[in-house]
């Protein structure tokens, strides 16, 4: 069994405040895994450690088979979507997606235009290539952020509460799109949320974090195939198990 993420005894503090206190978890390659935890428990920090955006004090962190402390090569196979879309307001939708390629490779190449358009088509924005972020709804902006992450063809996609602040209908649409993309691209997805229902609907495995100082409180395996019927008894049962760990 090969793992996309292997974390053992991770400790991370901000000043004197201990945030992650011995977190250990593994994410299998190709898995859709949700990390569920209360607000402020360190879920975002955990993703930032994986993306090497913040250092940590103790523990072993291996991403895509490489130790993050002494090998950064895995970063070219990883993409992170933040809670806010973080788009450049002076660039069009196309320009924002191209940005990821420019940052990663230094310049655009032949064929990139088609690649960008393909990614925007996957997230349902093929007709919005030349729009600016201020002309888009919140859900559409988050789709642009998702396309920006997909365009670099990551093996591991980290999603940090990307649907927070969106209305229920848009959330469900985007959840379905994420499942579709995950299934078609063969990615490993690590999705952070504080919503037990969202975690139950999306994930093959839900890892529940405790409040600070954060540890893994429990893991819920979801056997049912994806996507699940939102009104199915199986989903209700998974939600109940997730909730029992989350609130327990």
């Amino acid at each position, binding site marked *: 069994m090969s793992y996309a993420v292997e974390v053992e005894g991770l400790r991370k503090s901000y000043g004197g405040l201990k945030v992650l206190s011995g977190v250990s978890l593994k994410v299998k390659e190709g898995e859709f895994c949700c990390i569920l935890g209360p607000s402020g428990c360190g879920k975002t920090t955990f993703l930032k450690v994986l*993306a090497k*955006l913040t250092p940590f004090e103790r523990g072993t962190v291996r991403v895509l088979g490489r130790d993050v402390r002494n090998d*950064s090569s895995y*970063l070219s196979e990883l*993409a*992170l979507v*933040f809670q*806010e879309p*973080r788009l*450049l*307001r*002076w660039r069009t939708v196309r320009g924002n997606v191209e*940005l*990821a390629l*420019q*940052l*990663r490779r*230094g310049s655009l190449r032949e064929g990139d235009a088609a690649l960008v358009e393909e990614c925007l088509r996957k997230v349902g924005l093929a007709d919005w290539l030349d729009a*600016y*972020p*201020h002309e888009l709804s919140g859900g559409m902006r988050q789709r642009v952020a998702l396309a920006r992450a997909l365009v*670099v063809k990551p093996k591991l996609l980290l999603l940090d509460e990307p649907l927070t602040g969106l209305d229920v209908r848009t959330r469900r649409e985007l959840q379905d799109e994420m499942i579709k993309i995950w299934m078609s691209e063969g990615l490993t997805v690590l999705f952070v949320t504080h919503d037990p229902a969202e975690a139950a609907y999306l994930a093959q495995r839900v890892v529940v974090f405790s409040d600070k100082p954060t540890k893994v409180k429990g893991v819920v395996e979801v056997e049912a195939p994806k996507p699940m019927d939102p009104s199915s008894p199986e989903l209700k049962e998974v939600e109940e198990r997730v909730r029992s760990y989350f609130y327990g």
Partner: protein
Amino acid sequence: MRAEPILRAAAAVTIVMAFWHLASAALRTYFLPGPLDVVPRLLALLGEPSTWGHIASSAARVAVGLALGSVVGLAMGVAPRYLPGAGFILEDVVYPVLESVPTICWALIFAVLFGLAGTVPTLAVAVAVAPFFAVNAWEGVKELDEPLIEMAHSFTRSRARVLRFVVLPMLYPYLFSALRSSLQVSWKVVVLGEVFGAVDGIGYMIWTAFSSFNAPLMLSWVLISALIIVLSEFVVFKYLDRRFMRRWRR
């Protein structure tokens, strides 16, 4: 819709001309000829090919001086983000020195160092505008959108790429504002520098006309200089603002 700015400009020109005409008529001196004497001289001057050569010389000095000053100023303004202590040096050492020494003194210093080679006005422009770019760039650096920079770093570890594709574009509104202030200053400094540090250009021609007591010619060159500044502000910058900068303000 387009008529209003044209009417306003026409009204402003009429007021200036009327005031100038009245002042000239009241003083009755050869050294302040009225617009009726100067404007025909100006039109004749614009028909001479050598006039455009002098305008081109001054414009080239403005362009090179601005380019030099903007690059140096931008580097000074961005440096504090990457070099600890650079903020102190910029705010408490470089900026006060550049700002407290009058531009004419810089021009004199360069004239002593480089003679009349024509580099004096160019260097004087660079020194005059560098603080505008440094201060504006640094103000921009202090207001940088850190989450956007973090997003950029999630795609690359290259600081140079983040600087090029994210940080510098974020500073464009600040640099545009610096350029706007600098361009007017540049023309004024170039004309001043050319008075005693060049052998061609608008300032040199003003000095030549002044030395030969040819007031209508001197004022014609002054008008050319003023027209260039006004046109750069009302045509070039208004266009650039409408065409490019609005998307930064959304």
